[in-house]
């Protein structure tokens, strides 16, 4: 892979900046502690102390790495202390939600471009639905679904889907409308039906838009799954880890969970990107 070098270089820069920031942000605490103890500390004494705090403002990279490493390899992956276990729980809700959300998003987009009534009435409300703060209604969704006897994966996936359908709708509506007049006219001369116009023109033409949306959608889906884990009583999943770490001020645990989530997200986005490359190549659109 040609990108290994550049990626490593960028990471190196970030890690360096991060260490610097860790020193800067954690130093105040070291000084305060010294002041409370009535001692003086020199800069050289401060530096190592900023990197070994139990609850730093900003944990040093190696602390996070260790947290991650312990979380992943420290125990059997079925253990409740394993990040793999929690990651899997979140991932399954993410994937289910992404599936539902993408399906719904595409369906809505298809409806919107084909039906004036839908275009005019659904779009404004789809937008409105996204402005409803998810964290506010997530508990209600969970409570309501619980009270009708649905619990476990599905309520979380519903929240995931709720967040991920919107980017798909917006992108697909633009994408499905992107064929130019001549391309559409051609099919009109064949008297192609709406279905045929959709399959043979609109859908292929919308692919670049679709994939841009899917990347955003899958990341949103993960956020949804994590948000959905909070009000389920923060039982399991990366969201629960984050929140628990947050309750107890365990900065390192928060960061480890955060990075685990970001790795999952990056992997998911990467997979979508790979599918995109493959599909566009098959369609002869990658030059």
């Amino acid at each position: 892979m040609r990108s290994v070098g550049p990626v490593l270089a960028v990471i190196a820069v970030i890690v360096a900046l991060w260490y610097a920031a860790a020193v800067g942000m954690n130093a105040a605490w070291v000084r305060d502690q010294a002041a409370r103890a009535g001692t003086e500390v020199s800069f050289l004494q401060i530096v190592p102390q900023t990197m070994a705090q139990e609850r730093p403002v900003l944990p040093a990279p190696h602390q996070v790495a260790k947290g991650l490493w312990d979380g992943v390899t420290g125990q059997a992956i079925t253990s409740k202390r394993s990040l793999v276990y929690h990651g899997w729980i979140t991932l399954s809700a993410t994937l289910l939600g992404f599936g539902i959300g993408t399906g719904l998003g595409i369906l809505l987009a298809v409806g919107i471009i084909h039906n004036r009534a839908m275009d005019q009435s659904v779009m404004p409300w789809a937008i409105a639905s996204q402005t409803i703060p998810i964290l506010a209604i997530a508990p209600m969704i969970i409570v309501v679904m619980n009270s009708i006897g649905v619990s476990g994966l599905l309520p979380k996936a519903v929240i995931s889907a709720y967040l991920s359908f919107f980017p798909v709708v917006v992108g697909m509506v633009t994408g499905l409308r992107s064929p130019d007049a001549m391309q559409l006219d051609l099919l009109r001369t064949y008297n192609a039906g709406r279905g045929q116009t959709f399959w043979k023109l609109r859908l292929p033409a919308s692919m670049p838009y679709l994939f841009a949306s899917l990347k955003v959608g899958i990341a949103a889906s993960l956020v949804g799954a994590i948000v959905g884990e909070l009000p389920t009583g923060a039982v399991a999943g990366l969201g629960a880890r984050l929140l628990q770490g947050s309750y107890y001020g365990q900065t390192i645990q928060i960061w480890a969970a955060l990075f685990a989530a970001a790795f999952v997200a990056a992997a998911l986005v990467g997979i979508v990107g790979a599918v995109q490359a493959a599909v566009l190549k098959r369609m002869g659109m990658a030059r």
Partner: protein
Amino acid sequence: MMTDGSASDRPVIDAQKVGLTFQTADGPVHALKDVNLRVLKGDFVSFIGPSGCGKTTFLRAVAALEHPTEGRLLVNGMTPEEARKRRAYGYVFQAAGLYPWRTIAGNIRLPLEIMGFSRPEQDRRVKDVLQLVELEGFGKKYPWQLSGGMQQRASIARALAFDADILLMDEPFGALDEIVRDRLNEALLKLWARTGKTIGFVTHSIPEAVYLSTRIVVMSPRPGRITDVIESPLPRERPLDIRDSAEFIAIAHRVRDGLRAGHSYDD
């Protein structure tokens, strides 16, 4: 206007006082005005005229891609819209307009898929028309891998692949060299003679118009209108060397004069 039929009595295209105005940000554009024309079954009608005189617009109106703002336009006795629904048209656009995500063969197959031809039939037809436009061996290429003229031929092939009764061709041979053009002209004439299709054909080449057509419509711009309709006395069978005959040259002359008159507005 010209109403005397030759091949059959039923007018395939019947335009009466057709007008079409585009509303644009800086005022209306009169693309067509008072256009009267009757095309009978089996006619080969060429449209010639200065750039911007409404040739494309008229063809598009016939294919129900634009809607006349005035007058009456009938196709096979129906509205163009109804005729379109019956898949009466094969249309070659002025620009090739191939779908970039389909190969050349895939592009030609497109109308066949839409009209529900069986797979072997599709394959057969794709092969035939690729041969007709001299693009054998390019079926698997993507449009951007072809030269401009090859793309144009692919788009012609696409329109010929299914048997529409009415063929509307907007400068189909514009980007081709003389030799290929001659050969395709001949091929088109043969096809026309064999199938009795009605053909509407836009061209800028006077010899091409005279060589191909049973009738030549000369147009003039601002507003777009018909200034002359020339019936060709040439026989239906036309060897290439008919172009050296006195009759041919006389007609070409008349067309050129009409064309020049259409340009007079800005001389």
